[in-house]
């Protein structure tokens, strides 16, 4: 089919407009990336850097030589791994049980769980609960409060609905009870779905900020997001803790950018896998508003 002049013009403008939007979106990320790798002397000499002449790892070396930064990375990695496993275990077992029609009271349970999406008692009652439980300053507080959510239970239950009861009946004949059937048959069947949910949990744990700020007072228990806030937004000079006095500190700006890049890299690494599972997550996200 031949394109008319108008169609060609439309195509060209459309490609250009979306190209500009793409560039504007990617630019801040590109900028922190290149500046974080710029040699300190070059950064101090120039006003604007769009592409460094001399690449350098100075900012990264310095960050990783500090006491606080690697520790915060460790805390966040702990949250993203252990937290995700706990979340998956609790959410998937509950979702599976709720998907079985023989579970009496499942409608009531579902309504009660839906209600928690709709209504939250607010920051203070949650804080007081964590305090009463003696979890203030414990990293587990961050995991416990975000262990599961109504949305995830509802979504996962939807997935488990497609597993027929006959499968368990067959398992029962082979001598399985519900728990062993779940572990030996249902879980292996749902591995791809669990992986998808796990990715979303892991990103959420890596991005945990406010709960950590609320429940963790000691700076040495901070995850990376709280440390970043302290370094970049509060611009606190002492946030990195003890540093090796032999290393000449790079300019604070390149240091900040290196910190942001390190916090973004894990997200970038899982991003291609996340993309596969967008559709489901997006539907929830859009409903959540």
């Amino acid at each position, binding site marked *: 089919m031949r394109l008319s002049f*108008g169609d060609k013009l*439309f*195509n060209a403008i*459309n*490609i250009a*407009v*979306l*190209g500009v*939007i*793409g560039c504007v*979106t990617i630019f*801040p990320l590109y*900028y*922190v990336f290149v500046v974080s790798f710029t040699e300190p002397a070059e950064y101090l000499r120039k*006003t604007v850097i769009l592409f460094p002449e001399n690449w350098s790892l100075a900012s990264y070396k310095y960050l990783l030589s500090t006491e606080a930064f690697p520790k915060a990375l460790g805390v966040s990695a702990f949250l993203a791994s252990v937290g995700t496993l706990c979340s998956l*275990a609790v*959410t998937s*077992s*509950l*979702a*599976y*049980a709720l998907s*079985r029609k*023989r*579970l*009496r009271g499942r409608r009531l*349970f579902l309504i009660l*769980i839906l209600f928690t999406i*709709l*209504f939250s*008692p*607010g*920051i*203070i*009652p*949650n804080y*007081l609960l964590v305090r009463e439980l003696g979890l203030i300053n414990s990293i587990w507080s961050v995991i*416990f*409060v975000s*262990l599961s959510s109504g949305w995830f239970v509802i979504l996962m239950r939807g997935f488990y609905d497609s597993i027929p009861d006959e499968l368990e009946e067959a398992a029962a004949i082979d001598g399985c*009870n*519900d*728990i062993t059937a779940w572990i030996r048959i249902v879980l292996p069947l749902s591995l791809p779905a669990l992986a998808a949910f796990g990715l979303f949990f892991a990103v959420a744990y890596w991005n945990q900020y*406010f709960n950590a700020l609320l429940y963790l007072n000691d700076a040495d228990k901070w995850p990376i*997001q*709280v440390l970043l806030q302290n370094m*970049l937004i509060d611009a606190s000079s002492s946030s990195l803790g003890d540093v090796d006095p032999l290393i000449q500190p790079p300019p604070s*700006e390149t240091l900040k*950018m290196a910190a942001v890049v390190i*916090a*973004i890299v894990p*997200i970038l690494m899982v*991003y291609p896998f996340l993309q596969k599972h*967008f*559709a489901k997550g997006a*539907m929830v*996200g*859009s*409903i959540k*508003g």
Partner: protein
Amino acid sequence: MIVEGKAALKRKNGTATRLSGSLSLWKSLKKDKYLYLLALPGLLYFLIFKYLPMWGIVIAFQNYSPFLGFGSSEWVGLSHFVRFFSNPDFMILFRNTMAINLLNLCFFFPLPIILSLLLNELRSELYKRTIQSIIYLPHFLSWVIIVSLSFIMLSQSEGIINSLIAYFGFAKIDFLTNPNIFWIILTVQSIWKEAGWGTIIFLAAIAGVNPQLYEASRMDGANRIQQMLHVTLPAIRNVIVILLILRLGDIMEVGFEQVFLMYNGAVSNVAEVFDTYVYRVGIQQGQFSYSTAAGLFKSIVGVALVLLANKLAKKFGEEGVF
């Protein structure tokens, strides 16, 4: 005769179940005990971390003192609510919340629709997927990172934007501390983070449009823009209306972490919203009861609006959320 007998038996069984409901619940608990055991950790989680705090709401009606506890603190009825409503802070919180949300509705809301219409018109699948990958990415970055990036880009001393402004000989702009543009900065951040992600639901709706409609409109001589406006747009009109209504139901919600992180002394008057107020007055100043009352007010109005919006959305023939 046999059929009748069976039916009678069934009826009889029916009454029997109803009469001994608790008994059969016990039986079911016993028979499916492992299934209940599977559900137990999750149910306990919701009970402890979602329902126990609801009990904590009582402190909104008390002068809660951590030493006396929930049980023996003095009851004061609605006085915290009265104090909150008569406090000049209340109007400021309300104004800020509404302003941020209205700006969002006017400038953020239409963007994913426009973006998805444009994306839909791209003929190169590779180019389309590249752009999509780029504009979806910021959705997964935390607000701490988004605000950090904003500081890096916009700071007055070192930010690249101000460096460029100064380079061209103009006066630097105090993007981060100017109360007049604070709401606009918030809107721009939201757009950068979520506008791309917002296209997904519209693209899904557009994917369901019957291709024959485009063919027919071409026969009638419609060009690309006309097709976009008269075929694609009407096809996603329902989704737009539903999302708009649901968005209106969320009008009391402001992205807490975003506002909290962007907050500073210079913009405090335009940056305080309900949730940040609860945090500052409650956690930082220790006025637990008063701030719980403020938070409870916001939650209840929020729930009412969401339910109302959901009812309206259902009227438009779409399935609601609740």
